[in-house]
């Protein structure tokens, strides 16, 4: 029986894993540091964190999920589109729903 195991296909090199690992850690620690030390004002802080989140997303896809390496990328593309729709819904929807908070406070 053919199990679908990651071991069978060769994915990425050790260097690319390490680069991805370091980058993702940096992109996690940096926002925390910015928040803890009050380096930026509110709007700038939010924008920066959002950008780093988007970068983090890309790094996960490229370095760990091997988005470019599938033979048949059809499912992948579909999954990514669906994922992006959901992310936008969750983030955008939550922001929209929570706007009333600023109105009532």
């Amino acid at each position: 029986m053919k199990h679908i195991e990651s071991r069978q296909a060769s994915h990425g090199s050790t260097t690319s894993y390490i680069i991805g690992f370091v980058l993702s850690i940096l992109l996690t620690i940096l926002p925390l540091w910015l928040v803890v030390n009050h380096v930026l004002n509110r709007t700038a802080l939010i924008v920066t964190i959002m950008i780093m989140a988007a970068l983090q997303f890309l790094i996960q896809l490229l370095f760990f999920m091997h988005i470019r390496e599938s033979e048949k990328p059809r499912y992948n593309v579909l999954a990514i589109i669906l994922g992006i729709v959901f992310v936008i819904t969750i983030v955008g929807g939550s922001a929209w729903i929570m706007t009333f908070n600023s109105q009532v406070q």
Partner: protein
Amino acid sequence: MEPKFKISHFFIHGDPLILGADVSIGIATVMIIFVLTYFKKWKWLWKEWLTTVDHKKIGIMYVIAALLMLFRGGVDALLMRTQLALPNLKVLLSEHYNEIFTTHGTIMILFMAMPLIFAMMNIVIPLQIGARDVAYPFLNAISFWLFFFGAMLLNLSFVIGGSPNAGWVGYPPLSELQFNPGPGENFYVLAIQISGIGSLATGINFLVTILKMRTKGMRLMDMPLFTWSVLATSILIIAAFPVITVTMLLLFLDRFAGAHFFTMTHGGDPMMYINLFWIWGHPEVYIVILPAFGIFSEVTSVFSKKVTFGYTSMVVSMMLISFYAYFTWVHHFFTMGAGAGVNTFFAVSTMIIAIPTGVKVFNWLLTMYQGRIRLTEPMLWTIAFIPCFAIGGATGVMLSIAPADYQYHNSYFLIAHFHQVLIGGTVFGMFAGLTYWWPKMFGFKLNETLGRWAFWLWNIGFYACFMPQYALGFMGMTRRIYTYGWDMGWAPLNLISSIGAVIMGIAFLFQVWEIAYSVKYGERDTTGDPWDGHTLEWSLPSPAPKYNFAVLPEVHGRDAWWKTKEAKERGDYEEKKQELEPIHYPKNSGIPFILSVFFFIAGFGFTFEWVWMGALGLLGVAICLIVRSFQYDTDYYISVDEIKETEAALRGEV
């Protein structure tokens, strides 16, 4: 750091119910150990069950665990209904009542409905698509044990440390440290966290299995509808569960590390928790209903002896439901007052979901129309489901009218609505599935007479219990109240409701009897195809051998097994003689079990904020993962001789 909880917090004392539970748990444990030792079954238990990676056995373990949890959740329900049967009773006092509805809700959704769904997926999917196992058998075992130990962690809270009491939704600020300093809510957070990892892995596992492991010739549009429903469910799981994981993590950081994500002060926002919870919570209710839809499609088709009416529209409506399910979550908190724009959007999106659901109902009816209907037990559950779900759906649409929801919200009208869809939909669906695939799992049918008793009692009990609650909701009775006075005028309807609950309890006992009786006297299934089924699982002997298919079948079009049988009857079936080949098969492994024990230890440690114990548990988890990554010898080949022997024995030739 001085530990917050000391041993003196450990055992709860003073309550006879809990004392009773302590004693019965103690006795049960001693008895289990005694029986296992006396019959020398430890090794058997370990080798055959605890370390198995066979999807069929994992499915059976899910069934057993889920039925036990149904019992626990049911006892909770009966306690609550006893307390509410008449005004001013003192069976449960307020604090205890809060704990009971919280554990009831959490257990029923996460530790009863979910594992029953997973049970059906595990038992059926590989057989239905002509595969020898799921894509990741080892991960599958991890999923099961994480669910199991997550459930055990929550159940432990009843006797050790105290149960959570902030409802199954755990809304802050009530679930925050300020109002809930005990370990109860930690139990809730960590139990959900641990079992949640398992659920997510199950979603991934079955998505890959269905996309990648279908047998030769089976295109997506040839798949049985249950397989389609599991595909839709898996997508929902993958997109929804990460949200609850993050939400619980943030709540835990608030409680454990003094963060302020959801507190009322320091910039926290409790409403964000509610928002995030339901971003997961609404898809979750579809996760537990879609597989039931799939089962109903299989059952109506087989027991009407017709192909499913409108297969394509069934598939499309299923996928649409799973997509729309992400865009309706605000209907759970219209009363938060997010403004007319938000409420209107989500009211309309909720109503739209009713359309594909309605399509499915008509398709089931039209499948039965003019069919040769056999009223077997699975078919009975399906027929009972349709009106029940129609009423539940209609009251759901009533709730989705945002301005009207200000009246219904958190009343017994809501309680009646969601029990109607959860019991009439999910639970009836799983009963249909269990009775339908039972012979495939165990090799014997369940007794029809006892099954009918259980069926009628469940239905009578259900309507008696929940129909009065719609009225009670209109009469102003709100959910989560533990008592009320005679002056409210609620007493008669509540009494009827409680009687209905007792009838459902009796129905459950009939099911236990049905199973026990059938183990001994049930009709044995010697053909492997007791219902004259349509799909591939019925082409195998019951129970199927561990490798499922000695030779992988090749299919052309839908209802493959039905077509084969027809061809055989006509006499133009040509059997392709295929050489047997050795089968590549995963070895059993103790790691999933051990890893989950470590997760349990970590969860228990963090519940009591004993950091050393939590760290120890996590260290164990890490070691298990590392050990596994360096294991290369993880599978073996089943030899052709062994396959021949097994097949001959199964066909009674030995």
